[in-house]
């Protein structure tokens, strides 16, 4: 029954092995006082390798909840979430932390760099928790900095950088663990349009290199960079655009 729902959502030439992420009737219910609020009211969908989704919808439509569940920061109230065909919907806190560490990279609207650490240390943060040796992670940080166009800024502190540069650091940090999927929450929200455009170019390039990207945004201009668009309304999938 659920499997049918999934396949009906996808194109007829659906190949299940291409699905990295699969939601099966995922619900998230909050209690606001005595009232139940359905942030997600039964969402079923799947993301394939190489997709670039823009997640859109009015506020309160469940975008953030979906992002949190996708990123293993939160667990669904009911339903299943398969990540690379493993059910992660009821894992322990430690196991979820481990999934985040190995499979995801987060990019936030407000960059969320740790101010007392240098650029290099910020990029190295996931590697630190992965237990990499200092020399190896330093080399990796340099390589990533170069890739996002931050060569020579490794010893700066975040507050010595412009917004665009800070977001590049965040992207480098999100890439450090070589994640399957990048989760971006309004990555250009705090940037002017030119820098925002540059960040979007960077994300598009990363997508071309094979990363799945899921990006929450309000702005149609930004959403236009994505290959697929997913519209949420009242906790349900409203419509989907683009080849998927």
């Amino acid at each position, binding site marked *: 029954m659920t499997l049918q729902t999934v396949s009906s959502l996808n194109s007829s030439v659906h190949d299940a092995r291409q699905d990295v992420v699969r939601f099966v009737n995922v619900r998230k219910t909050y209690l606001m006082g005595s009232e139940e609020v359905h942030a997600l009211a039964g969402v079923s969908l799947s993301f394939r390798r190489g997709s670039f989704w823009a997640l859109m919808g009015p506020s309160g439509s469940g975008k953030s909840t979906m992002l*949190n569940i996708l*990123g293993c*920061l*939160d667990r669904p109230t009911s339903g299943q979430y398969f990540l690379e065909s493993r059910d992660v919907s009821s894992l322990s*806190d*430690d196991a979820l*932390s*481990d*999934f*985040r*560490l*190995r499979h995801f990279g*987060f990019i*936030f609207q407000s960059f*969320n*760099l*740790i101010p*007392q650490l240098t650029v290099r240390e910020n990029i190295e*943060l*996931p590697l*630190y*928790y*992965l*237990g990499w*040796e*200092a020399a190896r992670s330093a080399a990796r940080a340099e390589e990533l900095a170069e890739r996002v166009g931050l060569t020579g800024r490794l010893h700066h502190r975040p507050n010595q950088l412009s917004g665009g540069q800070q977001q590049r650091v965040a992207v480098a*940090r999100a890439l450090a*663990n070589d994640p399957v999927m990048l989760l971006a929450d309004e990555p250009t929200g705090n940037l002017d349009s030119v820098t925002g455009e540059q960040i979007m170019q960077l994300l598009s390039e990363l997508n071309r290199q094979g990363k799945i990207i899921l990006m929450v945004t309000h702005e149609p201009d930004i959403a236009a960079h994505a290959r697929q668009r997913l519209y949420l309304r009242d906790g349900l999938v409203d419509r989907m655009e683009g080849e998927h």
Partner: protein
Amino acid sequence: MRQLRMARNIALGIKNLLLHKLRSVLTMLGVVFGVGSVVAMLSVGEGASKEALERIRLLGSNNIIISSMKPVEEETGSGGRMLRMSVYGLLYEDETRIRETFPAVSSTVPVKLLRKEGRLYDQTMELRMVATTADWFDLVQRPLIAGRKLTARDVKDRANVVVLTEHGARRLLATQSSIGQVFKLGPDYFEVVGIVKNESGPAGGVQTPDQEVDAYVPLTLARERFGDISIRRTTGSQESERVELHQMIVQLKSTDDVERVASGIEAMLKRFHKKVDYKMSIPLALLREAEATKRRFNIVLGSIAGISLLVGGIGIMNIMLASVTERTREIGIRRAIGAKRRQIVGQFLIETVVLSTVGGLIGVCIGVSIPWLITYFAKMPTVVRLYSLVLSVGISMGVGIVFGLYPAIRAANLDPIVALRHE
């Protein structure tokens, strides 16, 4: 590898603490003063009790000391020129009796004290004559400076020989060649055969008969020459006493027998003496009492210092809670990236332990210098013991863990989603 990681974690903790130098220093102060006061108080307490304990130990823990004591008299000398003679104290036969009754006794040393004037040419000085046997020098350790001590033969031969203490020898014999010098002591001439060290340290609670300028002579000789009667002249009256022995030291073969033999001797003396004209002191009992006092003292001091450490710990907890709130966002970022709860706990715990350990080490430095200052300025003895340093640094680390745990757990239990949204 694991050690390297730990080193990195500690380095990170230190880095975070250095970010707020003033705050870290102020947070540390509580522990600094807590530990400082623990170390200082314990060392003052140790110093105070060490002196008493050493003095008692010097008397020998398997000795019983019986001293003659003038009993409280019913009739008081009512004016006029009264000639009275008080007879009291230990008897020569008490010594024999004790030695022969108790098999646990290894030796007894009788002591007779007399005041005599020493004279060498025109030099005079009042000496306390300690008439005793050769065993005295075995019981009371006195390092020999020159010559020899009294021997059993001196006692047997009633030889006119004297052993002087250092002070007396220096003042009386100053320019003369000391050993072999003959000087007048009372009505008689004595040959100096040896010089011993004075007892070290100032006068304490338990009296030993050689704190002043003492002249040790064979008991047999003193008994023959000076008898048992001493006359003291005071204005208007003349008092004479007849005391056979002023003190007797009973040495036992083992410490275990002390209490049993002491009560035996007491019962015996009670039978043969009409009045209580003696006093027994048992160094072992005094030692135990002093040790108990020291323990109580240490507990009181320790509790006071412990309270100050507690206050220090609460200070740390308070600041760490503030720090957790301030760094909520950082915690959220770390959790989102994939840090596990226990890694967050570890991060914050390391910071508190670093704070409290560094505070503890500074406190030890202060705690060691305060006793030094006390000794230097107040001339009070202090003893800094290693155990108090180890103890207080250990306790301060414990304080760091105990009071750091709650803030750290609170940090780790933050919902990463909420923490990320925190402004």
